[in-house]
């Protein structure tokens, strides 16, 4: 999967690795120079002048190494960032083509979390991981080679503790990740607890639960503390173990190497060079454990990204270019379950959607929203159960169905741009007049004009804060302006007060004329305007008819009509 990206940047990686090897080579020559100097000093065969030459040589090597170090960092780590960019782009463009089924499996939150964590894991593995792996391998092999060259047996003694370090870092860093995940989990439990406590502060106070809730929070906090300390134990071991092992190697060199110098088997210069090589080995040994973990995490993440990129939309592609003749829908014994789930959401729907208003109501969770989403082509359905203009919906490309539909959902999602752009989202070329006309129909024009920047006010984090009702009306305007033959409004004015809702319904009567309109609402009184009302209960059609018919024939409908009477404006006023 990364192949093409690697190929694209092969020159960059190649040069980077060459620079890295150059640095390694230069680093290894310094102990050699030191050895020459010290040997000269110990048998008094070196002059001040020669010493200065050696020192200048070391400086020159240092400067060259600095330049090469910059090069590999910029080239190789820079590559990992390019890779991150390319992968992120692929993920994003892929997600933009997915259907509703994909998003029931992957929530926005999980896409964000996995996207961010997995991308950075892959980036780390391909950047620092790659460098550390090459560096560790080359440096340790070279250092060991030179050490062998000085004295083979001493090398073995000095290296004796090293495998312990590699194994210890490997085991510890693996543990660390596991424990760390647990700490993260406890952290999010704590966060969630705090969030739910603060958002239901009214209830907490009403039940005087301040003290007991604080105690619960304390317990969660203590759990978190304990796990954190467990992490600290591992983390606290990691570095001291490295120091311990490094120093043990040094001890070996001091004792056995010292003996060898006394016996004159090696020179004093050899001894110093040996110590320098050993110091060079400590980091690669630590790196081995670290790198294997990094690479492992990178691979797991890459697999997850791979799965994401290879998930396919469940909507059949249809015959390219085919468009429906008329925007009428026929449901023939339509059943629906979410892909990959056993639970039946809708069953046995037989219904025709013709131009005119179809009102829909029913208890929460009965399948109203799913019904709207199926019509709006977000989820796949079985062949021959849903016809558009008399032909199976599965024979059309999803986009050609979607082009017929304006949809306003329960959650009025606006994008972070100006209000005018938000309203014109579906028809970016719309004239300002059209935008205003739509906003007026959705009864939000006056409120927009009252904002300091009017239609140029920005929504989103740093922009104006709109109330839920205002956002719902902007979302409605966005749907109206497209003027498509099918208009689906899924409980889209729930946060708007009843009087304004009446006003809007009055305003958009013209817009709805001759269109297929689906209008979900919990407010029965407003449903009286619909040509037909559909009552859905437990995923089945419970009643279909006019307002008057349902009020006498349908138990559920009659019940909510009564229930809502007390919440409506009082009778005296409504006549006034």
């Amino acid at each position: 999967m990364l192949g093409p990206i690697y190929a694209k940047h092969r020159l960059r990686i190649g040069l980077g690795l060459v620079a890295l090897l150059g640095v390694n080579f230069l680093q290894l020559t310094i102990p050699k120079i030191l050895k020459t100097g010290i040997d000269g000093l110990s048998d008094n065969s070196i002059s001040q002048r020669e010493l200065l030459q050696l020192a200048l040589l070391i400086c020159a090597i240092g400067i060259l190494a600095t330049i090469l170090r910059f090069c590999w960092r910029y080239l190789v780590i820079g590559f990992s960032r390019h890779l991150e960019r390319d992968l992120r782009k692929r993920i994003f463009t892929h997600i933009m083509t997915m259907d509703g089924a994909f998003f029931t499996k992957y929530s926005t939150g999980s896409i964000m979390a996995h996207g961010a964590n997995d991308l950075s894991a892959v980036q780390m593995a391909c950047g620092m991981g790659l460098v550390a792996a090459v560096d560790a391998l080359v440096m340790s092999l070279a250092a060991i080679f030179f050490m062998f060259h000085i004295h083979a047996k001493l090398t073995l003694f000095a290296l004796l503790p090293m495998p312990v370090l590699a194994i210890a870092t490997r085991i510890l860093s693996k543990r660390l990740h596991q424990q760390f995940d647990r700490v993260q989990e406890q952290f999010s439990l704590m966060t969630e607890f705090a969030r739910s406590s603060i958002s239901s502060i009214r209830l907490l106070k009403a039940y005087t639960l301040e003290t007991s809730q604080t105690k619960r929070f304390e317990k969660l906090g203590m759990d978190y503390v304990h796990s954190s300390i467990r992490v600290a134990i591992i983390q606290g071991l990691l570095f001291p173990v490295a120091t311990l092992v490094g120093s043990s190697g040094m001890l070996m060199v001091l004792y056995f190497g010292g003996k060898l110098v006394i016996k004159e088997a090696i020179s004093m210069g050899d001894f110093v060079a040996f110590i320098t090589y050993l110091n060079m080995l400590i980091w690669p040994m630590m790196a081995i454990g670290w790198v294997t973990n990094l690479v492992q995490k990178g691979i797991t993440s890459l697999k997850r990204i791979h799965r994401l990129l290879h998930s396919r939309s469940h909507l059949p592609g249809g015959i390219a270019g085919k468009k429906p003749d008329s925007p009428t829908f026929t449901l023939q014994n339509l059943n629906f379950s979410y892909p990959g789930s056993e639970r039946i959401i809708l069953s046995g729907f037989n219904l025709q959607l013709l131009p005119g208003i179809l009102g829909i109501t029913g208890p929460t969770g009965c399948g109203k929203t799913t019904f709207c989403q199926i019509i709006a082509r977000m989820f796949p359905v079985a062949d021959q159960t849903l016809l558009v203009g008399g032909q199976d919906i599965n024979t059309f490309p999803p986009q050609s169905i979607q082009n017929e539909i304006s949809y306003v959902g329960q959650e009025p999602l606006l994008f972070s741009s100006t209000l005018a752009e938000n309203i014109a989202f579906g028809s970016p070329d719309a004239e300002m007049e059209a935008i205003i006309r739509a906003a007026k129909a959705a009864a939000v024009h006056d409120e927009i004009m009252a904002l300091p920047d009017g239609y140029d006010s920005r929504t989103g984090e740093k922009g104006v804060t709109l109330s839920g009702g205002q956002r719902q009306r902007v979302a409605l305007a966005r749907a109206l302006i497209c003027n498509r033959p099918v208009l689906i409004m899924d409980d889209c004015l729930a946060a708007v007060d009843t009087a304004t809702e009446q006003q809007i319904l009055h305003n958009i009567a013209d817009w709805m004329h001759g269109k297929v309109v689906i209008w979900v609402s919990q407010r029965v009184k407003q449903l009286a305007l619909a040509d037909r009302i559909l009552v859905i209960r437990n995923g089945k059609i419970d009643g279909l008819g006019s307002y008057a018919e349902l009020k006498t024939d349908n138990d559920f409908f009659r019940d909510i009509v009564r229930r809502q009477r007390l919440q409506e404006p009082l009778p005296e006023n409504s006549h006034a």
Partner: protein
Amino acid sequence: MRNFGYFEEDYTVSISEKGLWRRIISYVRPFIIPFSGAVLLSLFVTASTLALPWIMQRAIDLFITNPEKTFDVRIDGLGLYGLAYAGLICINFIAAFSQVLLLEWIGQSIMQRLRQDLFSHLLQIHLPFFTKHPVGRLVTRLTNDVQNMHEMFTSIMVTLFNDLLRMVGILVLLIYMNLHLGLLLFVFVPLAAAITISFSRLARVQFRSIRKQLSKLNAFIQETVSGVYLVQLFNRSRDMNRQFAELNDGYLERTLRQIRLFGTFMPLTELMSTMAVAVILWYGGGEIIQKELSLGELVAFLSYMRLFFQPLREISQKYSIVQSALASAERIFNLLDTKDHEQKSPALPDPEKSFNGALTFADVNFSYNSQQQILHQISFSVEQGETVAIVGPTGSGKSTIINLMLRFYEPTSGVISLAGHPLHSLSPHILRREIGVVMQETLILQDTLLNNIALDTGKNEKQVQDLLEQSQLGAFIERLPDGLQTQIGEGGQTMSTGEKQLLAIARVLCREPSFLVLDEASSAIDSQTEKLLEQTLEYCFNKKSVLIIAHRLSTVQRADRIIVLEKGRIREQGSHSQLLELGGIYSRLVALDFE
């Protein structure tokens, strides 16, 4: 008052803010003994780290390169020094490990206290505060900001201390060993300091710009992914992809800039250490030729230089951690300083104060903000054992009446009293034990049903069971798989709207209040639960003083008295038959229901 966190992104504090440090230290004070222990351990770590090259040097000079002593003495001496070396390694390991643990423990304990203080402080603050401050931001104070401060206690206090101690120690040792060479190497100190400080500054700026771009990018992805259907439906994928590519490239550009900075700085520290080696070889070598320095000392110099440059990178990174920790600390302490506590009544009511369950509103006016008055001259009373129903359209002020009764808000004028005691003479705690409320929304704790019902009353399973039987709620429990021991809340049994309301009633009855307030569920409830609910309401109406906000005429008809509320004013008041006779709004409502 400052607005918390609005400027989180660009917010910095100058370290010299004394008050801030004083408060941080006040949290450390209880841990002064373990903290001193950590500092002591720090001395051990530094001493043993620095002693190792010294032992090496002594061994080289005394035994390895000393031809004057006999072979055996040299070998034995080397063995002895080897042992000392081994001993120091162990001390270093143990000291370093215990220090990390000790500091983590101290840091975590302090954070836990801070978190607890903040949490209980938050719960004490009066309600209007929460309408002004978004939940997310308050939660961030409790979690991320506290976490940020933790970094300071562990990594900073220790590492900074260890590192600085070590660097000073090395310089002292070097100067002691050879004054000239030591002083010569001292030149590297201001150089290193200058590079480190300027790097930290630059790194912080870049880090911030990267983070800003990343949050922009993530916000965009989040928004587009959650609105993906709109993008598809309105055919805007191409534009969205283009905008995304722009942000994505901007992020790449910034990270590359950071790599360039790190690519310059990191090799520079290495270069300095190489230069130091060259200086030691050249100048130290000269000193050896002039017999001013021994070979062992030269080797020690080389080792110390390596130790000296190690912590430099760390220090530069720690600087930015301190900055962000202090910013967090300031936000936390600001929140802790909020004075909007619920007013505790001056005199605690004496425990013999009796509550007979009578409630009066006398000329109560109220507005949330000065612009719009919500309640006008509300006067009514509920006598002991009476059931009063309030009827009115959405927005007529029904829930405001509950808010005032529980002292979530104080009336602008007028007096509310419970059993003859004005509410402001009662502490909110006592008041809320006497008035039991069932609201539309229910708080469900992730626990057993029993604990959810008993809450902090301390009632056992038997008592709760009896109480439920009495109040006709027994059947509710029988329907659940494990009865009272059923786990509910996240990950447990899910409950329907009706069941939640039953739970809320059970919970309130368990607290044996003298007065009950019910906000009847307005959404549809399945018929089985509906029946249970009606039986229970019947029980409540018979046994208690009840104020009910009714959504169904069948409930209203069973009340002793009915209040019709509209736009914050009482329009009609009386019994069902009285109001029917009156022929006003209520009678029309009833007529509509039977049409």
